């Protein structure tokens, strides 16, 4: 197994606050890795740094050995790294189907001007909507979906670009237990198809259930990593959470 994503000494400062202070860890190809840590420990900033929404002040992010810390989000996506956001986000006034179509592989602006979405892409989008059980809502404006349906739509949207690595920011946040189970199931299923996952999540039961490896952050640094069992027993982790 090799590291498909490597974060090396990433620092990010917002004014007087250092959100990331030299953060390093790696994600192995084909794994489900979880990123946990108390609120404000820098998990989301790290996600933003990896996906190009925030440019690190220092340090590097490597995707399959190539540095990506200077690339814009759309370029990083084009290289096969997709993400979801903490707050569920859909294109509210576009239809559910159009939401998915936005994410189909993009060419240049000039080509985009001359092209329409292809039938094959529509078919693929519908297939994914069926996969997450919202195909019958294809023509509904995405803004009128329920919270859980929006989460499913996000997953379908991100999958259409055929990413190799998926970064999920709190996939089980605010979702009822049944839906949490379904989402965990989908993650495992997709992982079986070869997609690597990096998941930020607060729901420990969920994390321990699906992860191969767990990375723990506190105050902008990685303080522990290992298998779920190792991390669970690590005194530093308990300290970070309980604030000794």
């Amino acid at each position, binding site marked *: 197994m090799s590291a498909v994503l490597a974060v090396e000494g990433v620092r990010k400062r917002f004014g007087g606050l250092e959100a990331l202070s030299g953060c390093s860890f790696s994600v192995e190809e084909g794994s489900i890795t979880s990123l946990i840590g108390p609120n404000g420990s820098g998990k989301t900033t790290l996600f933003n740094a990896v996906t190009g929404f925030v440019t690190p002040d220092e340090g590097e992010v490597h995707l399959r050995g190539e540095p990506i810390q200077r690339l814009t989000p759309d370029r990083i996506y084009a290289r096969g790294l997709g993400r979801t*956001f903490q707050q569920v986000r859909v294109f509210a*006034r576009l239809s559910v189907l159009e939401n998915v179509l*936005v994410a189909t592989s993009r060419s240049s602006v000039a080509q985009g001007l001359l092209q329409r979405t292809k039938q094959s892409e529509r078919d693929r989008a519908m297939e994914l909507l069926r996969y997450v059980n919202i195909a019958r809502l294809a023509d509904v404006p995405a803004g009128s979906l329920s919270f859980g349906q929006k989460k499913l739509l996000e997953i379908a949207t991100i999958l259409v*670009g055929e990413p190799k690595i998926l970064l999920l920011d709190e996939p089980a946040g605010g979702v009822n237990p049944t839906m949490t189970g379904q989402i965990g199931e989908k993650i495992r299923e997709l992982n079986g198809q070869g997609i690597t996952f990096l998941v930020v999540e607060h729901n420990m039961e969920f994390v321990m259930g699906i992860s191969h490896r767990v990375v723990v952050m506190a105050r902008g640094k990685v303080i522990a990593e290992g298998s779920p069992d190792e991390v669970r027993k690590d005194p530093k982790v308990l300290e970070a959470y309980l604030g000794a």
Partner: protein
Amino acid sequence: MKSFNLLAVSLIALVLALLLPLLALGTSALGVVVFVLLLGVSFLAAYRDERRRTWLSALIAVAAAVAYPFVFSSTQATTIVFFALLYVAIASSWNIIGGFTGYISLGHAAFFGLGAYTIALVADRLNLPGGYGLFAVALLGGVVAGIFAVPMGFIALRLRTIHSFVIVTIAYLFMYQLLGYNLQGITNGSSGLGVPQPNWSGAFFNTPFYFAALALAVLTVALAYWIRHSRFGLGLLAIRDDEDKAAGVGVDTWKHKFAAYVISAVPVGIAGALYAYFSSYIYPQTVFDPMIDLTIVLSAFLGGMGTLLGPILGAMILQPAQQLLTYYTGAAGWDLVLFGVLFLVVILLMPSGIVPTVVERMRRVRVLEAVRKADETEGVEPNTAAGGGAR
């Protein structure tokens, strides 16, 4: 909600009804109303998913527009619709950046003025006579506007917030107005510039202008239609709804916005040149005019931002109303009162505009029907998501 929308529609009907006594003063003006209604109705009918009906309605509308000057040949009637068509083009073009991406430009009058000065200066420097040839120069006005839009878009879109974009674009308009006043060697300052006039006879004079404006309007709407249905257009709409998310799924947001801005400048430049040619004389305050931007934005708001039909409908209602008011009440500024009232009515009662309000109503009914049917065949519990309608 429902009664509120009905109230809004009836209020607009009331405003139009108030205009009717004014219109009754001349049959030509009545023709304008018939024309506007015909266009409006056919375009509204066009707003369906069914392709054939769309094309048929568009064809009817264009045919009506072509027939119009032959039926109502008075100068007054053709002038009013000439301006209406000009604003259909301008508002539809503005909609490509303002409506599709949500980046509201309040400085598109800058492109209008650039086009106007282009035709005046080129005709002057090259000693071109008035005639059909100047319509080709009007196209050049669009090219010049597009070229100027490159650095302007580059600066205005540097910061990734809509607010800063709005402010910078307002600044553009006044910068150009100031330049118009002060670059006296080029623009002749506040004394303005003349555009050579064709020697067409009185009754015929308006006809070429009318058809030039019609061609521009049709082509601009076609351009907006094309963009709306292209991959690029889908990217623009995604930016409007959630720019970060769009970037996160591979939309090169900066390039999309930039391209939309530059494209939307071109028809506005051509419209400015046509205006200059038609009105024969231009001044900084008439072509770099904040009222132009207000008219554009209000047209789009009234009809519905981001829809293809909205700006067309808005311009077809507002422009004739403004022209007629100015015509019958003189320069007393009643058109500004109308604009103010309409703005309030739209924002209060129909914040998304006429077209989205109507379409949403039709769509909701149809989608609910479709979902119910799907549920029946799949044997799923009825789902209320589609009706939730959190808008």
